[in-house]
């Protein structure tokens, strides 16, 4: 096209057929409408990690709800003659120091762990979300007060705070444990929500809604929260796993769930006595715990990738 021997280049015009003109700002009417949530779902659906983790979580929840379906052996009918016994027919994972079936104890211990985790995560998310949203949105004095209170609780390590508090509480049911964990864990969610709300609050669509005459609270509910909630969902999923660990830690230390309740943490704690002679007694509840936590962390990861708009843009 351009002649090589001369500086002045000829006027070149491409044939119209090469690039047929499209109407200016053409809208493809055949494409399917996609909301951000539908987009996120599409992105998650393609990840094997999503199916593995959610499958695992469903299984764990099912075990927690109806443990009887998964084990016909009673976890509380123990015979000392079986103490630290090796696996045998009907008892695939062997026996604990007290002579109880390890498999049955894991199955029946699921409920307590999962209850504490889910309950604590729900409380923390709900409370942190509301508090963080209000603080970030209204700002000023409310924000200052809420943020400082949050900082106070944030400064205390969850497990340490829980130990102190639980040592004075007489009744240590799963609900109590979940509440105690929540007291020290909500500031994290509140902080994240506050930050996300601060970003969303300053966006143009919020200013546009103000100018349209939408009330301030309605803007918070309709525009700000939906646009700020994604990181909270991710952190809620991830923290569910860490709350289960927190419960196990507390129970392991003997300060978690009361003696009447079965849980993985308690079993791990009790297995300490026989760790040299029969380490498998410690191993199996630990595996159950790790798998559960891993499942929630994995799901959190997938959610983060799917909900993070920047990650979406990169795809």
């Amino acid at each position, binding site marked *: 096209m351009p002649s090589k021997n001369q500086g002045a280049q000829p006027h*070149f015009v491409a044939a119209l057929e090469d690039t047929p003109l499209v109407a200016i700002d053409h809208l493809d009417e055949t494409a399917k409408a996609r909301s*951000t949530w539908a987009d996120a779902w599409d992105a998650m659906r393609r990840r094997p990690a999503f199916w593995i983790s959610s499958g695992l979580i469903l299984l764990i929840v099912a075990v927690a709800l109806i443990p009887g379906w998964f084990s016909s052996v009673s976890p509380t009918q123990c015979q000392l003659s079986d103490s630290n016994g090796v696996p045998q027919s009907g008892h695939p994972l062997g026996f604990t120091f007290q002579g109880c079936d390890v498999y049955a104890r894991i199955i029946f211990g699921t409920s307590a762990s999962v209850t504490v985790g889910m309950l604590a995560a729900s409380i923390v998310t709900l409370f942190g979300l509301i508090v963080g949203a209000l603080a970030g949105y209204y700002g000023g004095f409310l924000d200052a007060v809420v943020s400082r209170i949050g900082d106070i609780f944030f400064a205390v390590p969850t497990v340490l705070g829980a130990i102190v508090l639980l040592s004075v509480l007489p009744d240590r049911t799963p609900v109590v444990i979940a509440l105690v964990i929540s007291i020290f864990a909500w500031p994290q969610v509140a902080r994240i929500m506050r930050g996300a709300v601060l970003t969303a609050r300053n966006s143009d669509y919020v200013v546009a809604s103000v100018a349209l005459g939408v009330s301030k609270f309605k803007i918070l509910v309709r525009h700000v929260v939906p646009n700020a909630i994604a990181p909270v969902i991710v952190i809620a999923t991830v923290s569910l796993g860490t709350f289960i660990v927190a419960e196990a830690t507390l129970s392991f230390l003997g300060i978690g769930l009361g003696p009447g309740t079965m849980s993985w943490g308690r079993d791990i704690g009790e297995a300490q006595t026989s760790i040299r002679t029969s380490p498998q007694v410690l191993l199996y509840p630990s595996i159950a715990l790790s798998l559960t936590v891993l499942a929630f962390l994995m799901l959190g990861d997938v959610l983060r990738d799917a909900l993070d708009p920047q990650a979406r843009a990169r795809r």
Partner: protein
Amino acid sequence: MTQLVTETVNKTPPAGSEPLLEVRDLEVGFRTQRGIVPAVRGVSLTLYPGQTLAIVGESGSGKTTTAQAIIKLLAGTGQVTGGQILFEGRDLTILNATDMQAVRGREIGYVPQDPMSNLNPVWNIGFQVSEAIKANSGLRGKPVRARTIEVLQEAGLADAADRLKQYPHQFSGGMRQRVLIGIGLSARPKLLIADEPTSALDVTVQRQILDHLATLTRDYGTSVLFITHDLGLAAERAEQLVVMYKGKIVESGPSQEILANPQHPYTQRLVAAAPSLASRRIQAKKNEDGPATEIFSAGGTDTALIQRATDRELAASGKDLISVEGITKMYRIRKSGLRFDELLAVNDVSFGVKKGTTTAIVGESGSGKSTVAKLILQLEGLTSGRIEFEGRDVAGLKGRELLNFRRRVQPVFQDPYGSLDPQYNVGNTIAEPLLAHKVGTKRERQKRVLQLLDQVSLPASTQFRYPSELSGGQRQRIAIARALALKPDVLVLDEAVSALDVLVQGQILNLLTELQTDLGLTYLFITHDLAVVRLVADNVCVMQKGRIVEASSTDDVFDNPREVYTQELLAAIPGANFEFGR
């Protein structure tokens, strides 16, 4: 300016010289989950030493991708899938990373698009420039500092020596762009690629920088490859022009020849839509046989058209719908500790807007024009002064009355990507004001949404879409539809078309003009772009540093500007006096 134009045009390379850069059948694609999506399809261009070439096209046309392919800085998953890039006879596409490093900076300089994000905020300016110098020359120690100062001074920062220790946030946009140009030219490259080097800057700063670039390239014989969306800039600053559309070149050759006499239908479209000072106000002229509106008719003899203009003049003789008297807005900016700095964003501004007319407020960044819009919209409180709407003071309106005011004065914002909630589909977005003011039943609101979509020329199916699926122009239509939902009297358009491609911008301006005629709307049009003002405004207020320096009818301001500042603004528009072939 005319002088400058002729100067660049007559500058032809010495006969028989070899091309500096030759791109042959370049193909660039981006890898996605659905395979490779082509972005540049068979682009060929030639650039001789000392020449300036401009690539123009709308966003997504592949112009930036072409430039990035030349210096092998393709973003993300981009890759050259075919063709050659010959730089002094060497094919850059087959060069390895180390050899390419030697070419970048030393042989080919690059000035990136956004001066705000392309300097590292944690390093001072001196460090960032000397880094480039060290990388591209053997210099070490003292001479580096001397050269750094020299480079910055050449780029137009006279007090460079004192500014080396300063950080990017202490520099204005124009100064940062000078730093980037300095870095780009620091190693005296043979070719400088400048990707929209001035599009984020005010016109007067843009002019200074382009003049400066022209001097530098003339002194050192550097070839320049401009990437721009501004046809005026291309006409004024480049002797060669390449027009890209959908990844292909549709027209190329001497720029003034193309722009004066465009051949390809796409180029013709572009040129027709390019606003310039020679344009006249758009008049909505409806044909009897269809709703088609003629674009930018240059003040015709059509009787209907004259009638419309007369109508507007008649309306203009009435009372002011909005009257602004001596408004002032002071911001208190917190400094260290309890000390505050006072910033007078708007200083004693007065003007009136008549019903059914368009008043434009023009000014550069920081002139206070957007603050005026916010004050009128009651989004910010006045420090002093008075704003009247239909003769009533609107300051301090509360509750019901404020709601009624909001119903009648609606805004449309600049950023079409930010002003729509990404979680809301279009139908809900447009229905929101109706819901907020409890207008009609669900069925009636639904009907109104469809009617509004039709008014902004979007198909009914758009109501189920989400903003992320729409283009900038389409989003701006949605924003306009939402603003119109409550049948307001006034639209405050704050840079409403500034972020759009020129063709889309033209469409939106037409739409606005049609709507004004059909619905008797009054517009307050806030913009930095004088050429656009000429197309839509009846009256203009020119703002500078919080004050109105000149206010008059559009023709008056453009034909005989009285204030020096207005004259400067007009003179700084690139290609302002170029006769585009329409």
